[in-house]
């Protein structure tokens, strides 16, 4: 089989294709987007007719994947870490129903928040759902774990979680492919009640999940991805999870660590391996690219006995991603830090593209809002969040997808009238529609601006589920037709836009202003492609 140079994200995708997956379900989100995009571009996936269209949000993706599993086929669902919060309900309950065809939930965490609102560690949610978790240390393991993930999933009829972090997702290395595993045929669950979580049935299903815990633990002890590696210097024992293992090896000549190491790639954490390490070594150092998940577990409530170093005692920073230099410092090794960044270098934050429609919307909104004063504009997540930065300084919130509309409603309920929401088209269909129904049902005095650039721009211009549908959705939810206004955001229409915004801000009820113009990036890409 051929060797490929793949991003960690792509290795997961190739592993899933080769592992007999019949469908991938996802909503874009950095650093997980490339998994699904790889399947979308794969010729093999196309030939095999593997489902790979984007879902409207992570919850619908998770549920569709569970449905495919119900029908006996292997499915994977992918998302970024905060997406798992959106999908948490079906995710946790899928552990109770169990699966039929293999089901993998792949979540990409973003320690250091390169492109995220937080750096939550999905291993906690995997543990919460009580399912096996895989965490690759390199691209090859990413490939191998998707194959193994389906096998474990079908062996115990349980969903499994694969967790990666930004660096691995976005870094390339050689990956050796393995033989193709055949897809499953359509087959229905043996037990017709397996997926009916009525209390009486759910209680039984939950017992099955609880009984499986000892199997999951035993599998972890013998997993290929968990290893005890001998070392001469027993003053310290090291637990290295996922990619942290690479950062550790980087610090030793020929990649041979002088201390004993337990490398972890599969959870629940392998108790016997860690026990052995603890028995043989003086102190422990825990390396994790995320929260101190294992460290907290080992330290326990009373923090007595073993000296355990890591993120909790300051040996490593409490937040942010790991890197080889931080690990060197934790080991007391000398680092070679170069010269400082000279003072002449200034920050270069991201910005809205020139020609972007969001710019025209904020220019108009800033003018329309002058008479009302500041701090009334709730916004959301997407390129348009850059309206928080100069020169616009137009928005006052960005919390989670869809929150602009509902936070504006709550503020209006409290007496902030008018309050304003600015939301993107994809964010609107992801999680804005339900909130708009709340607003409509109470006719709350909220002005909602939907900045529709007909793309999921922030994550690379994926197709938006909202395109061509927004106006009808708003009308269908019951927004008064005369208060659904459509604008063409262009500098030459500035005065018109300001006028319409002022009219709707003055109206004491729900208004939706849809400002439609295609993302300048996807627009020029399409132009280039048409030229060919």
């Amino acid at each position: 089989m051929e060797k490929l140079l793949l991003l960690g994200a792509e290795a997961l995708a190739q592993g899933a294709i080769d592992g007999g997956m019949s469908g991938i379900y996802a909503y874009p989100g950095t650093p997980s987007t490339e998994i699904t995009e790889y399947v979308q571009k794969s010729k093999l996936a196309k030939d095999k007719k593997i489902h790979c269209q984007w879902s409207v949000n992570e919850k619908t993706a998770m549920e569709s994947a569970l449905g495919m599993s119900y029908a006996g086929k292997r499915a994977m669902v992918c998302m970024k870490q905060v997406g798992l919060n959106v999908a948490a309900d079906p995710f946790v309950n899928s552990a109770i129903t169990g699966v039929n065809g293999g089901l993998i939930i792949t979540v990409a965490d973003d320690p250091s928040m390169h492109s995220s609102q937080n750096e939550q560690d999905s291993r906690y949610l995997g543990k919460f759902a009580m399912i096996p978790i895989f965490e690759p240390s390199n691209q090859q393991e990413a490939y191998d774990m998707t194959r193994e993930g389906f096998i474990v999933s079908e062996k115990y009829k349980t969903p499994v979680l694969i967790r990666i972090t930004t660096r691995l997702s976005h870094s390339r290395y050689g990956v050796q492919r393995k033989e193709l595993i055949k897809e499953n045929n359509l087959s229905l669950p043996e037990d017709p009640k397996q997926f009916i979580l009525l209390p009486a049935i759910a209680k039984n299903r939950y017992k099955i999940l609880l009984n499986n815990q000892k199997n999951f633990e035993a599998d972890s002890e013998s997993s290929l991805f968990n290893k005890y590696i001998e070392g001469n210097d027993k003053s310290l024992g090291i637990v290295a999870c996922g990619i942290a293992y690479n950062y550790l090896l980087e610090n030793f000549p020929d990649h041979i660590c002088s201390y004993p190491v337990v490398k972890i790639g599969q959870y629940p954490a392998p108790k016997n391996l860690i026990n052995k390490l603890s028995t043989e070594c003086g102190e422990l150092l825990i390396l994790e690219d995320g929260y101190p998940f294992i460290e907290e577990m080992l330290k326990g409530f009373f923090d007595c006995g073993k000296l355990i170093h890591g993120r909790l005692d300051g040996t490593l920073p409490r937040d942010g991603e790991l890197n080889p230099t931080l690990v060197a410092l934790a080991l007391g090794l000398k680092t070679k830090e170069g010269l400082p960044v000279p003072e002449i270098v200034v920050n270069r934050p991201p910005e809205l593209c020139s020609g972007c429609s969001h710019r025209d919307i904020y220019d108009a909104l800033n003018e329309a809002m002058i008479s009302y004063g500041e701090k009334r504009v709730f916004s959301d997540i997407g390129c348009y969040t850059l309206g928080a930065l100069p020169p616009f300084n137009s928005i006052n919130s960005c919390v989670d997808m869809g929150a602009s509309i509902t936070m504006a409603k709550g503020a209006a309920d409290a007496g902030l009238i008018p309050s304003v929401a600015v939301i993107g088209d994809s964010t609107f269909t992801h999680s804005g529609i339900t909130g708009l129904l709340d607003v409509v049902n109470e006719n709350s005095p909220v002005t909602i601006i939907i900045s529709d650039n007909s793309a999921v721009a922030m994550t690379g211009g994926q197709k938006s589920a909202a395109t061509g549908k927004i106006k009808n959705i708003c009308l269908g939810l019951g927004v008064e037709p005369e208060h659904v206004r459509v604008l063409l955001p262009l500098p030459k229409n500035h005065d018109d836009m300001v006028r319409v915004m002022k009219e709707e801000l003055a109206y004491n009820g729900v208004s939706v202003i849809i400002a439609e113009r295609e993302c300048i990036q996807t627009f020029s890409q399409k132009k280039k492609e048409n030229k060919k």
Partner: protein
Amino acid sequence: MKKDIILAGVGGQGILSIAAIIGLAALEKELYVKQAEVHGMSQRGGAVQSHLRISSNQIASDLIPLGEADMILSVEPMESLRYMPYLSTDGWIITNSKPFINIFNYPDLNKLLTQIQNYKNTLVINADEIAAKNGSLKSSNVVLLGAASLYLEIPYVNLENGIRTLFGRKGEDVVNKNLTALKAGMESILQIK
């Protein structure tokens, strides 16, 4: 053999193409290649970097440790200095002198170029100008790669093949433009030398 390279620039300037060409060339020489890139938020006109590691042995870390980069290869002068803590004491700064100004407080260009020249091993070329002279401003990133080619320890012909593989899909014309750009960049250094 081991080469650790920080590629630097501004989102949209094409540092990933440089990484891809070097990567393909290294693979052809049967070297190990590991390359960490930046996707997402910062691609919108923000500072971007890529860690490119090439070695005759297996590579562990996806990130280059501080102080161990052999080269900072930057398509923008200010960006070449943002990653100084990564550069080893003998490392090279190879950078385009043409600034990309999308911020109001961009430093004075003369001061900036003087600052760059203060470091030990530097090569500064106007890659945009050279690219324009050769008929394709868009290939200034490849001009820069041509300049760096003398310091990469990867045979020139493998870089050429990398270009053929990467741009092959886009047709003969694009391939040739980039081969010309690579050569022009390389020759500009021979002239300085």
